[in-house]
């Protein structure tokens, strides 16, 4: 009797052990959420809890909580199970924090975080229900079936400083500044897609964007979103060059080893005028070809530049335009840096002086006819909660 009881106890213990072991093995399996669909140059992935990152390759599985890291002039597209894509540019950090997808019920719950760099998000199945959220260090983007782009860090601050809708007077945290741009689909979209909408929330305030090329900028922690405003062609092109460094280099830009983050304007002096051919309208007031818009800001990607705003660390003007580069020994490129001990701006996240754009002499372009500084339209005060700027009246006529 005793032997029988002991045997039964041992077998029961073994059964429980098998159960727990199986569960542990299952729990230890990384949850696959997608693959590396395309990789350019130096891209690494660090699995959750792993001490070191490993080199990423095409078709490699991406698991939940893997941190994707891209190097200079590198790029990656992560393709998730529901066909949602994250395309990240150089020097970026991306993590898929949550991904629950049921293809049978067309339901998805996605949360991701981008702590650095530029990225483009394209929603997968348009009929998928559920919540989708992308976070930067200081902003949260709620997504409803859409294409949008973001830049986090110094590049965001530099691009925003050149935007009439933001201006150079806004103090930004070079580590966390976040620029968000909706790319579509617009209301006039074709196909099986719905118009895109994003809600950008920061410091307790939410700005909704529902038209392509509208942007929102969050300068630092504790500051409300600025915008929406229409991203300028020059600003948009800078964002594209960050997300697609390979295309930028092949099409218009040269590598820039000095900054390691992207590009410098190519010498386009040999290129013919951009709008010199029939059927292609001269740039309109908002700078986009054939469109109206920003008064006094026409000329995309015309001559000149960010007048008086030197120090764009990734090359000032990826479009190249017709301007010429010159060094600015006065180092004018520090309009956006966080100053120490200035209230909520920065909040200790990025020690002053570490901004990559402000260390050396700034750059500025010269040679164009529009060299005088543009009016600081919609310049925001560095107070914690600036009033969102009104959207300039769009003059997009729809299809060109």
């Amino acid at each position, binding site marked *: 009797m005793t032997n029988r009881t002991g045997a039964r106890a041992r077998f029961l213990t073994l059964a429980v052990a098998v159960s727990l072991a199986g*569960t542990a093995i299952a729990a230890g399996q990384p949850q*696959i959420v997608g693959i590396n669909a395309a990789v350019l140059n130096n891209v690494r992935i660090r699995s959750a809890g792993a001490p070191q990152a490993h080199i990423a390759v095409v078709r490699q599985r991406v698991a939940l909580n893997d941190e994707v890291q891209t190097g200079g002039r590198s790029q990656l597209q992560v393709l998730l199970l529901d066909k949602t894509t994250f395309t990240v540019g150089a020097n970026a950090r991306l993590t898929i924090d949550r991904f629950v997808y049921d293809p049978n019920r067309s339901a998805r719950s996605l949360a991701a975080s981008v702590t650095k760099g530029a990225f483009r998000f394209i929603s997968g199945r348009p009929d998928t229900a559920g919540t989708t959220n992308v976070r930067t260090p200081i902003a949260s983007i709620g997504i409803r079936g859409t294409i949008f782009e973001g830049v986090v860090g110094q590049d965001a601050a530099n691009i925003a400083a050149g935007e009439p809708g933001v201006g150079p007077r806004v103090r930004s945290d070079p580590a966390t500044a976040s620029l968000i741009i909706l790319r579509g689909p617009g209301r006039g979209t074709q196909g099986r897609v719905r118009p895109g909408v994003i809600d950008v929330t920061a410091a307790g305030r939410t700005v909704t964007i529902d038209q*392509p090329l509208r942007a929102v900028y969050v300068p630092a922690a504790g500051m409300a979103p600025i915008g929406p405003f229409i991203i300028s062609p020059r600003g*948009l092109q800078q964002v594209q060059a960050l997300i697609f460094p390979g295309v930028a280099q092949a099409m218009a830009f040269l590598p820039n080893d000095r900054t390691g983050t992207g590009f410098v304007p190519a010498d386009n002096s040999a290129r013919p005028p951009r709008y010199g051919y029939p059927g292609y309208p001269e740039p309109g007031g908002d700078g986009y*070809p054939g469109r109206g818009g920003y008064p006094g800001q026409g000329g995309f990607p015309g001559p000149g530049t960010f007048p008086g705003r030197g120090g764009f660390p990734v090359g000032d003007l990826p479009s190249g335009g017709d301007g010429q580069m010159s060094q600015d020994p006065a180092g004018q490129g520090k309009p956006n840096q966080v100053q120490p001990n200035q209230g909520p701006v920065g909040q200790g996240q990025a020690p002053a002086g570490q901004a990559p754009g402000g260390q050396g002499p700034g750059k500025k372009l010269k040679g164009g006819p529009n060299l005088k500084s543009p009016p600081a339209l919609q310049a925001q005060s560095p107070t914690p909660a600036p009033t969102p700027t009104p959207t300039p009246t769009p003059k997009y006529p729809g299809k060109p």
Partner: protein
Amino acid sequence: MATRYPLYLCLALGSAWLMAPPAFAQADPAAALDQLSDAATGTGSGTALARQQIRSGDLTGAAATLERVLINHPDAGDVLLLHASVLCRLDDAGGARLEIDEVRGRAIPGQAWAEATAACGPIGRPGRGG
């Protein structure tokens, strides 16, 4: 009593199976994505897939496909032009025209310009006089 031992074992294995996450039960949920990735390794296969997606109305899928191709072939002007035409169809004409401007002056097949014109309206072909 010994007849109950297999029952305990079955219960244990069953509970382990029930507690396992989907990844444990499904070998490779991402296998279907490999084909999409593979198609982007060449400009011909990538644009063929993108055109198929355009025809089926999957414009965002087409845009993602072409972006994959551009990562692998950043100097493919015809792919960038097709991407621009997709942006036009997505009502992002401003972004599309930036890309059209980038390929200006490059040798682009007539079909790509025709697609761009169909999607974006008359844009003129550089060097062709209209």
